[in-house]
């Protein structure tokens, strides 16, 4: 007899706190690097394409400023310093968590973002949840089930190929102007959130559904799915309990795409539905050349990416225990 307990067997290694902490530590260091890169690149980009920041700062007051006034403003903003000096200054302040002051709004960038963040987070989280739920439902119900598969797939292709603002306008025409069941714009109440959420969620959900379905169909070919069915389990239960978890790894991997879609989509959606939020803030900062505000928003967006990727990494180990022992 061979010793059964020893042939190639290792004892269970649970996802230990140490292993996870180590992973997070590495990711954190990489995240700081990403943030620094994002700040540097946007700093360079803005100065290469720069017009006169001082002019745009005072022009907001409707005056035709004299050269003395402009020089004064430049000195105040540090724009008379050499570029590397401005850059190091900027990084130094960033290290202390100071994103600078908005040229336009005369408040700190952090404060401006903070004021607008709530609305956008509400919209983004609602849209993300709706997108993921729609994708899961579409994929689980239609994977390898003709003809539903082709129908759902066609709808998804159309949605993911349609620009966000077109989707928003169509939704407005149907639900606000024709059926008059939902408000056209505004920030008040959950009813005003429905159309913007759908506008943002549909294209993202459509792409996720496509990925999820193809992944699910691959998993459904696996022998362990057959095994589960030979135990007398219902097909739909097999899909949800056995196949979905494998396919979800793909969705988690795509969360970078989702966050990007949400941020980009928020700009359009908030404009279209005249909602306040970070998207609107971003748009106005770019059009008015509010450099600290744009830089601040870029660093903020990079921060969100880093944070999400960190969470994704933890999510992987929770979904797939094999990753920890490997």
């Amino acid at each position, binding site marked *: 007899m061979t010793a059964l307990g020893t042939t*190639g067997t290792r*004892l269970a290694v649970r996802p230990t706190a140490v292993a996870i902490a180590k992973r997070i530590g590495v990711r954190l260091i990489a995240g700081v690097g990403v943030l620094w890169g994002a700040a540097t690149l946007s700093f360079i980009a803005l100065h290469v394409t720069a017009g006169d920041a001082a002019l745009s700062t005072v022009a907001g007051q409707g005056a035709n400023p004299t050269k003395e006034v402009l020089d004064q403003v430049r000195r105040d903003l540090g724009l008379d310093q050499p570029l590397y000096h401005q850059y190091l200054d900027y990084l130094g302040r960033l290290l202390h968590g100071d994103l600078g002051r908005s040229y336009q709004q005369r408040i700190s960038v952090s404060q401006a973002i903070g004021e607008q963040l709530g609305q956008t987070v509400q919209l983004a989280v609602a849209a993300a949840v709706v997108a993921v739920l729609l994708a899961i439902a579409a994929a689980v119900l239609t994977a390898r089930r003709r003809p539903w598969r082709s129908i759902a797939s066609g709808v998804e292709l159309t949605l993911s190929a349609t620009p966000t603002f077109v989707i928003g306008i169509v939704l407005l025409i149907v639900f606000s102007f024709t059926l008059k069941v939902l408000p056209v714009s505004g920030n008040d109440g959950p009813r005003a959130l429905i159309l913007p959420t759908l506008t943002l969620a549909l294209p993202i959900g459509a792409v996720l559904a496509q990925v999820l379905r193809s992944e699910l169909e691959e998993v459904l070919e696996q*022998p362990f799915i057959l095994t589960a069915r*030979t135990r*007398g389990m219902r097909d739909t239960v097999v899909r949800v309990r056995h196949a979905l978890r494998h396919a979800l790894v793909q969705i988690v991997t795509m969360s970078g795409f989702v966050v990007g879609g949400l941020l980009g989509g928020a700009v359009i959606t908030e404009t279209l539905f005249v909602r306040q939020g970070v998207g609107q803030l971003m748009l106005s900062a770019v059009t008015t050349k509010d450099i600290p505000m744009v830089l601040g928003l870029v660093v903020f967006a990079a921060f969100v990416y880093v944070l999400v990727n960190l969470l994704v990494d933890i999510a992987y180990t929770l979904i797939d225990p*094999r990753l920890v*022992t490997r």
Partner: protein
Amino acid sequence: MTSLLEVAGLKVAFNGTTVVDGVSFTLERGECLALVGESGSGKSVTTRTLVGLPGYGARVHTDRLRFDGTDVTGFTDRTWRRVRGARIGFVLQDAMASLDPLRPVGREIAEPLALHTTLNRAARAARVHELLESVGVPEPEVRAAQYPHQLSGGLRQRALIASAIACEPELLLADEPTTALDATVALQVLDLLGSLKGNRSGLLIVSHDLAVVARLADRVAVMKAGRIVELGATDAVLRDPQHPYTKALLAAVPSAHAKGTWLSTVERPAAAAPVSPPAAAQPGRPVLAAVGLRKSFPGPDGVARVAVEDVSLTLRAGETLGIVGESGSGKSTTARLLLGLETPDAGEVHVDGTPWPALTPEQRRAHRRRLQIVYQDPLGSFDPRFTVERVIGEALGAAGHPRGARRERTVELLEMVALDAGHLRRRPLELSGGQRQRVAVARALAAEPEVIVCDEPVSALDVSVQAQILDLLADLQARLGVAYLFISHDLGVVYHASDRVLVMRDGRVLESGDVRTVFTDPQHDYTRELLAAIPRLTPQVAPPATPLGVG
């Protein structure tokens, strides 16, 4: 008394292609029936149809399909679900893929209990431990909480069996239950399956390997191309096979009786194409040697694991040295060290008397050419977009063949492995498993090597195809004087193919010597254990053996 299972005129087709073509058999309570056939014979589809899961897009027609006297042809999925897992258990091949890798095995085993019984969570957990114990899994409480990848192959397969028998089904279907396992472990699993079959329940076991199931089955059904060509008591089928296909299958098994004989009944490879044997092929000269090889790899926890420890060997020109061992024994690492693909931590590899490290990169390349390799899975070792011509052309290029003469030489090489110019334009996916392995051999021959390392060259092949490849290798050795290092987990194959043999376990050589001596008079306990686990065709059959060289 009705039969447990009655099948008559079962036909299954996918997209108009008939896969199962009129299969009929019965299975009684307390009986074990084996369904034997090569890949594509329709045995797996037959089995799956018995639980109403023939597969996606299948069309099923049957004259009669009764389980325990009940006609199941009209069963809806809902009715089937009450039978599956409860009254019919199903064990699939390779538990690594057949158990959900993201769930602890205990939860998998508890699943049929949750579906078919009223046991509460605690009672189910208790039953899971009981089941694991009954299938011979030690420390069931610990194992139940582990994931499939944390268990050894044997324990995984036992866990899978536990999940199939959780509700004490009357019929157990086992589709290739031991194929992914090492011989000694396979033997234990087979014995377990045999012990589970009581007086009340029936066992249907599906396998490509007649020798494996012969041990367990009361009756054998041999399948070919969707039909049962022979069905009878195991003894009778083995002793006196009636159908030519059964005879060919039995003759193809490379166990002791066939050593020094051709295994396959097909045409011999065409008479020798003009081949120049390697100039320096005097028999007896050592072409490849290793002294005191040692290699360790860091494990997942950072602790080094020794893969190869103190391995020494000598391969002489024109002979075959077999290395036999189970998975994890260090066979493949030894091969990689010999080929210079890994650097040993200690010890030396000598090619033609010169150690690898003493060679300049230039000389190493020249030496590499003299050592070629044939892998287990030729599909994985070919670029899927390359045609056969390009696969071999590339090898010829690496061997320094002038571009102009390559095509002619490629056809020559293909003829040596019994393929023709018609195969030049095919891609790997358009070839059968046996043809692919022939191309792999042709590619190895392109460099006119003195040594070919064959790493499990026939393990992925059906037994009749395996026989042809083994014959081909023997034929090429006789004609070209090439030496083989023949690595396999299959003792029957190693015995058939080798002159001398090394038995490895846990990275060490336990025993070595002339293959006949080692196999008839093993000195080490482990070798004896391995030999005892060789599936034997009982009673010993003596198929008409063609002596080597004839034909």
